[in-house]
């Protein structure tokens, strides 16, 4: 749904590095290098960012309609 706060395996906080990771990778940087620079050296933490797909935006598409309808009916 949204990036997990910590690495499932070792418990390192990874969520605060996700936005920086995504920004740099979008600009064409090598994901491996970005992860190294962010201090994620273990493969358990690296997969947290590499394999993550943010789907909260897809959920929000539905939720917004609900919220607006609720407001109108008030």
């Amino acid at each position, binding site marked *: 749904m*949204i990036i997990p706060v910590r690495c499932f395996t070792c418990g*390192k*906080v990874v969520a*605060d590095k996700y936005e920086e990771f995504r920004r740099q990778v979008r600009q064409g940087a090598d994901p491996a290098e970005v992860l190294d620079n962010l201090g994620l050296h273990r493969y358990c933490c690296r997969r947290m960012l590499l394999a993550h797909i943010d789907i909260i935006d897809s959920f929000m598409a539905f939720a917004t309609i609900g919220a607006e309808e609720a407001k109108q009916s008030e």
Partner: protein
Amino acid sequence: MEVTIIYMKDDVCHFLIEGVDVAFANALRRTMLTRVPSMAIDEVLILENTSVMYDEMLAHRLGLIPLVTPLEDYNHPDECDCEGKGCSLCQCTLTLEVEAEGEEKLVYSGDLMSQDPKVVPASDKIPLVKLAPGQRIIIEAYARLGTGRENAKFQPVSTVAYKYVPVVSIDTKACDRCGVCVEICPKKIFRLEGDVLSTQNTLECSLCELCVKECEPNAITIDSKPDSFLFKVESTGALEPTVIIEKALDILKERIRIALDFANLL
């Protein structure tokens, strides 16, 4: 016992400890993991949550945020005068009140308002939830001291590990300078300069013994010192690594004292 700090930066500390046995090294590691107290959000009161995330998920995410812990200022709820009911000596209240008005809004751990300016999230860039226009969350969270024994969120460290100190030795008479070990070593321990094979950063060696396997004249031997350990401590940001180590040693000492007192009674 001798301790040498090898590397120290922000939340990471690598140190060498010499003249102890495995039992002590492991006791120290386990104490750091499970006995050193740190603060985390333990109870959450959700007053309003119109976001797409379930209350439970949100509470879980809040619990995982590492909080900077002033150890001197707070009591463990079990040892507090209020008998664990929760008073200002053993509990800290944090509030989160965010509404997305015109556009989508990401709620960060930095939006948490703490009652105590010393107890703040170790990182204020942790995304908690995303709000669509019109959505709102109002949350009251109670942080308290706890230990890793209760819940992993109270661990002040994300990883503590130790390994034996590697001793890489090269038999210069047998070595035929083929350079296979230089290629095969994943940690790049060996260096071949002209006609001399030398070692560098031997502390990095992971004792995988690939070089021993590949070396045809059997010129390389990898050994380890039995009484030295290389510790790697990685803090979550709740406590400084040095504080964690000192505190762990204090706790360990106290626990040994209690065990000895008990043994003497028998």
